Structure formats: C-alpha cells, structure tokens
C-alpha cells in the first residue's frame, strides 16, 4: 500500500464516517480493521512524531544557545 493509497483510504473512511454514523452494532472481526487502520494512520502518526522530535531538538538547541550566551555574559 503506497502513501497515496493509504491517504485515499483514510479520507474515504473519514467520509464514510461523517455520512453514516449510527447504523451497525455487530462486528465479526474488529482485529482486521484495527490492523489496517494502523497502516492507514502510520504516515500521519510518523510525520507528527517526526515534527515533535524536530521541535524538541530546536527548543533544546535554542535553550542551549541562550544558556551558553548567558554564561558568556556572566563570564
């Protein structure tokens, strides 16, 4: 499953969800749906996590930079 196919499926799932909400109770095998769903959201989850790590690194870099400048000023 490539990225566009995954994204398509996620969008389709979101559309199905928005137009049909309260119609079924019985499920036969929720395990399959959960398994596939992770694959569908994997790119989004990975991207958000990547951005979070990057942001933490930027913050750590800036904090380090400012604390270094402060130390230099004090010295």
């Amino acid at each position, binding site marked *: *499953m490539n990225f566009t196919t995954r994204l398509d499926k996620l969008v389709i799932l979101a559309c199905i969800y928005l137009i049909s909400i309260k119609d079924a109770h019985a*499920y036969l095998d*929720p*395990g399959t749906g959960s398994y596939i769903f992770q694959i569908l959201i994997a790119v989004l*989850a990975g991207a958000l*996590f990547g951005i979070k790590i990057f942001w933490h690194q930027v913050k750590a870099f800036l904090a380090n930079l400012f604390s270094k400048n402060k130390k230099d000023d004090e010295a």
Partner: protein
Amino acid sequence: MKFQRDKASFRDPDGFVFSRDGVIYRQINNSCREDYETLMNSGLYQKLVDAGLLIPHEEVEIEAPEPESLFKVIRPEPIHFISYPYEWCFSQIKDAALATLKIQKIAFEFGMSLKDCSAYNIQFRNAAPVFIDTLSFEKYRKGSPWVAYKQFCQHFLAPLALISYRDVRLNELLRAYIDGIPLDLASLLLPFRSKFKLSLLLHIHLHAKSQKHYADKAVSNKDTGKVSRLSFMGIVDGLEAAVKSLKWQPAGTEWGDYYSDTNYSSAAQQHKKQLVGEFLDKTNPAVVWDIGANTGIFSRVASDKGIPTVSSDIDPAAVEKNYLECVKSGRSNIHPLLLDLTNPSPGIGWENQERKSFIERGPADTVMALALIHHLAISNNLPFNKIAELFSRICASLIIEFVPKSDSQVKRLLTTREDIFPDYNEDGFERAFKEYFSLVRSEKVKESERTLYLMKKK
C-alpha cells in the same frame, strides 16, 4: 490437588499461572523461550524492574504442571490484593495506561514490544501500577503494526475518554465487556465535540469505523502495508499524548473542600481515630479492608501501623481523592478501590471465574465498617442479620460503628421516607451481630451519638 491452574490463565499458549501450596508461579513454555531470553538478557527486564514497572520474579526449580511443554517456572513477587479496572478511579486507569505505554516505549528501545495490552495485566503495588504479565513481551518485527493497539484503545483510551467527556459511571462498562469497551459503542456514547480532538477522532471514532468497514472483508497480505519504526513510535507517542490530555474532576466541586462536610467535631474525630488504632492493636491484622472508607481518613490509621489496607468506597470522587493523596504523599500500603458493597464486583468471564468476585478475594484479617451501617440498613433496607452474615464471610475480626437514629446523618436519611425500621437500635444491632461474632469491646465515641465495636468472628 497439587497444582491449581489459575482460572484466568488460558489464552496465552506461551505459558500460564498456577499456584501450589498458596504460592503463585508461572510456567513458561518452550514456545516462548526466545522471547523470554531476550527479555532477560537484553537488560530490558532489569530496567523495567528497577523502574518499578514490571513485577520482579525468581526462576525456580520445581515440578511443573505441564512438563512436556516446559521451559522454566518463575515465581513472581506476590501482590497483596488483586483488583480490576472496573474497580479503579479515573486516575488509577490513567496511571495504568501511562505505565503500559511507558513499558512499550522502553521495550521498543530494546527491540521488543508488548503483544498484550490488557488492563488486567496491571496491578497496583505500593500505590503505583505494575505490569504483571512477564510473557507479554515479544521481539519487535520490522514493519509490523502494534498488535496490542486495539486492546489498548478498548481497555484504556475508551474508558478514559468516556469518563472525561461523558460520565464517571461509564467505567462500569469495563465490567460488562471483559476485553475492553467496544470502540463502536465508545464512539456512539462520546459527544460530538470529541470528534474535534484529533487523537479521539483517530483512535476511537475512525478506528471504530475501520473495524466495521473491514469486519466482513477478506484482506490479503498484498493489501496490507508496513508500519515504519518512526510511525510505530508515533502511534504509541500519540496514544500517550491522548491519555495525558484526558482529565476528570467531579462536577461542581473543588478538591480542596470536597468531603470536608462531616458531622464530627474534631474531638470526636480524634477519639474515633484513637479507638480504631487501639482496636487494630488488639487484632494485629496482616491485611485490613476498610469498606465505605470515604477518602481514607481511617484507612490511614491502619496504614500508619504498616498494615496493607484496601480502602474502598462507592463514590468515584472519594476514591479519586484518596488515590491522588496516596500518590502525592508516597503512602504505598493503601489500595483505594471503587466498590459498592450492596452490589460488589461479581465473578466475570469464562465460567464466571476469570476475574474473581470481591468476596472471593477475601477474607481479610480485619474489616473496618465505619459510618456505613445506616447506609446499608436504612438506605438499602438490609436487615442487620444479613449485614452481619456478609461481614462474617469476609473477615476474621470486625471494627464496626453503630450510628443511631438520633444521629444527624440518620435523621437526614429518614426525613424523606417512612421509618420502617423499628429494630434499628443498638439492641437489635448487637443481637443480630452476636449470631456471627463475639463482642470484644465497645466504646462510645466522644461528642457523638455513635458507638464503635470490636468483634471477633465465632
């Protein structure tokens, strides 16, 4: 019988729990050899045990119930009281969820992953969640999704979201659904505004839709893709952020003054504490159950004496406050528990034996039932003899407070109903309890209408 196989331990082909002479063991089967050795030799076991996240165990050489499949027998450190997620307050479920995700994150650093994320794998030890299933770890397979994802959402995220967005009583759905709250049901019960929260939209609403969409579809391997390491970590991290963001506080109350409304003067409160302490010294119990403990004021009298105490109450807000105080103060030997004694946890699951009933988990050495009798006898129409009979089944000694009709709390209960309780008096109370108990000591609580009794089971 020499071995007794645990009734809840039958799903995992890699091993099972059994007891022998009252000691709990776990048989590890050959099928789990590689995963168990990786857990032990990679440093993961030690790291999790040191962090207090995994129950420590010893490998032992004893005869095993199923020697043909045996790899090893281990003896895990015992837990003094087993409790279940439908008996936990909001913060206990939340802390259990966060501990599970933390374990998953650490396991991932060691090339392992949790294959089982059931809330029943968590128990409370020293007022903190600890993972008890040593066989839930497997080697991470590159590209695989997280096999325990569905279970985590059903066992943890769904109840927390339902409590946070709807009502604290919805945690009782965990009692009805032993494998966690079905996500389509959670999705249906959550308010529309929960769809504007990305984590809940994804992990509950769309997840439920996906389950329904693929329920009757055959999926071949080529239809499925892979989940990269980064995406795997992203899913777990997203779940952690989702759980952390969920909050609950009882409507219209401020924690600071919650339950400050008691009808005891400080002298009466002090005297009652002193009497409870003296009665405990006389019985010297190894385990106490404080039933109707409210926020656990008197459980702390037992706790201060070093006695492990189960501190139960019917009110989720009181249990929450009790738990948060235990965590804050580092008070490790109190186990706050959500319990309605008039409808205690039944045995559930296969043969009604997978999860034990509250009564089966007893008896305790001492039960404390303080300021409880009027709620049972008057609010619930329970005759004294039925109350006495139940207590005789769950304890060896009983510290019980009698609250007469002249007490303001009982007057309050009777203001809106007819008094159909002619025998609700001290004589009737003593007569009924003497059927099952010997009265050891009784003392009037100073500056109150109440009497505290110490009884021993006959």
